């Protein structure tokens, strides 16, 4: 019996740390290919990727919550969860059990069907986003040729279940939260999409894989973030990403002090957990895409590609958590004004800059890029400053 361990299609791949997951999948498929028809192998390939993603998502979400609680705890000069398991590592599992066992409360006046559908639907786009994230070299689940566009489109669906949840709850706080979410997400979607454009222009492709590969260079450090338009684009994208997944300081839709809990006020138990999960998965995928677009994705020296990717992504997630621990919340009008009056013009300037960069990529280009950026930043800051309301004084009576 000489059963080939490796199918002919992947025979050329060396076994190394970088390719460990890819090789594993190829080995399983080739094993299946010996005694099953081709179409079953194709289905199995899809299933393997799907199962991995379906497992990865919740696991990432669980440990992100732990990470956040620990980090916030440290920022606030306390320990965070440290009772369940070593360093509190089993805390997410305990939380999960708690969530599953809690009573599912549905308000009497609620629109029952929609109320049920909303948390289910919100997980779908969150999971679908994983499809195009390049976790490592040759580790993209579906290498779509419109990958980044797909990502943006699917992430925009997230608004819909939030609306459903907020509307079906029949609660004024929910409704207000939902309205705020819609306004905020539509507003920040535009600068986010435009911030992506420079990366697409430079790599001349919408595919996430190609974008990562175009950042290949000496020492694997030819990342887009090391250009003026790249850093600006990255900052804008990252801010918008923070706003898109409703994280502080853009967490107006679920502002505890104003709206109790925003759109998921009336949710409890597992439904609430699903909303929570979707939010954290979105945060992860958005950070991953930011890594892909500007931080070179899985490009890196010495370490396996997937390690580089997860390392960069978790750094970005830590920055998000750091935001939460640091910044106060925006006011509503400031939030909208920031998107429309500051980020949007800046992204347009950035696109212009990128177009110019393609023609002259040298030291001079650096100089005038920085000049244009400085001037436009100064102008935007000046223009926006006039819209800041006067400081109000409340004289003490008697």
């Amino acid at each position, binding site marked *: 019996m000489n059963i080939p361990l490796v199918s002919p299609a992947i025979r050329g791949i060396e076994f190394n740390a970088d390719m460990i997951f890819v090789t594993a999948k190829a080995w399983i498929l080739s094993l299946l290919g010996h005694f099953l028809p081709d179409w079953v192998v*194709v289905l199995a390939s899809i299933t393997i990727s799907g199962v991995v993603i379906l497992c990865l998502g919740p696991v990432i979400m669980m440990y992100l919550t732990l990470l956040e609680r620990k980090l916030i705890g440290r920022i606030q000069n306390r320990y965070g969860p440290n009772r369940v398991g070593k360093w509190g590592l089993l805390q997410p599992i305990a939380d999960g059990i708690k969530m599953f066992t809690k009573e599912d409360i549905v308000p009497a006046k609620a629109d029952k069907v*929609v109320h049920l559908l909303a948390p289910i639907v919100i997980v779908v786009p969150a999971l679908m986003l994983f499809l195009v994230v390049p976790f490592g070299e040759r580790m993209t689940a579906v290498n779509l040729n419109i990958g980044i*566009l*797909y990502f*943006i489109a*699917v992430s*925009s669906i997230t*608004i819909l279940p939030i609306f459903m949840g907020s*509307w079906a709850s029949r609660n004024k706080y929910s*409704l207000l939260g939902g309205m705020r979410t819609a306004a905020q997400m539509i507003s920040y979607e535009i600068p986010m999409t435009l911030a992506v454009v420079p990366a697409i222009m430079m790599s001349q492709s919408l595919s996430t894989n190609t974008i990562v590969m175009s950042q290949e260079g000496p020492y694997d450090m030819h990342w887009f973030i090391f250009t003026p338009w790249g850093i600006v684009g990255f900052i804008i994208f990252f801010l918008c990403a923070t706003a898109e997944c409703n994280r502080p300081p853009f967490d107006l839709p679920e502002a505890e002090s104003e709206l109790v809990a925003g759109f998921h006020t009336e949710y409890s138990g597992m439904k609430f957990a699903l909303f929570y999960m979707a939010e954290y998965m979105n945060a992860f995928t958005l950070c991953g895409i930011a890594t892909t677009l500007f931080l070179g994705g899985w490009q890196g020296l010495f370490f396996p590609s997937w390690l580089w990717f997860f390392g960069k992504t978790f750094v970005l997630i830590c920055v998000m958590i750091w935001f939460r621990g640091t910044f106060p919340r925006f006011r509503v009008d400031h939030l909208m004004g920031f998107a429309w009056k500051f980020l949007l013009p800046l992204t347009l300037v950035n696109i212009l800059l990128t177009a110019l960069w393609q023609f002259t990529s040298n030291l001079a280009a650096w100089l005038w890029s920085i000049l244009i950026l400085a001037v436009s930043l100064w102008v935007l800051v000046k223009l926006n400053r006039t819209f800041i309301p006067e400081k109000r004084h409340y004289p003490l009576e008697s």
Partner: protein
Amino acid sequence: MPVLEIAAKFGTYAVMAMILIFALGVVTLRNLFHCALCLAAALIGTAALYVVLQAEYLAAIQILLYVGAVVTLIIFAIMLTEHLAEKTVRQNNSQSLLALLGLLGFVALLTGLILKTPWPVTQTALTAKVSVMGLGEALMGTYVFPFEVISIILIAALIGTVVIAKKDDPEEKP
């Protein structure tokens, strides 16, 4: 792989059926918010159909614009006028029977026409690939004029929307 092809075919028919069911939901449901949700579902289904027709770019745009923007707008409007969409309010006007009859005739007429017509389906067209780059070049080349017109319309609509929807601020008037 005939199995996969058959599966894809039936999958497509299933998507079509789903779209039609949701579309019926759009026009018949009494709750306007449910209608909007059905519309969103129908639009997503349409996007899936686009993918089947190898128009992936358009599918993404469809989701981005329709689901992300238009449906959101509609839901906004529904929420702002919500209490009028109660179940007690009659949702259809008096001409529904007449419209239904006319539409039946219309559908019958056009179905016959579609089936009768010899469509010039060509193999070159079927095998042709549409890349995003090709779309962009067409948009910036052959169709640059309509493209610019569309941008003007968008600007006009933007300003017009703001003007129409703006509240008459009494403080503005001296």
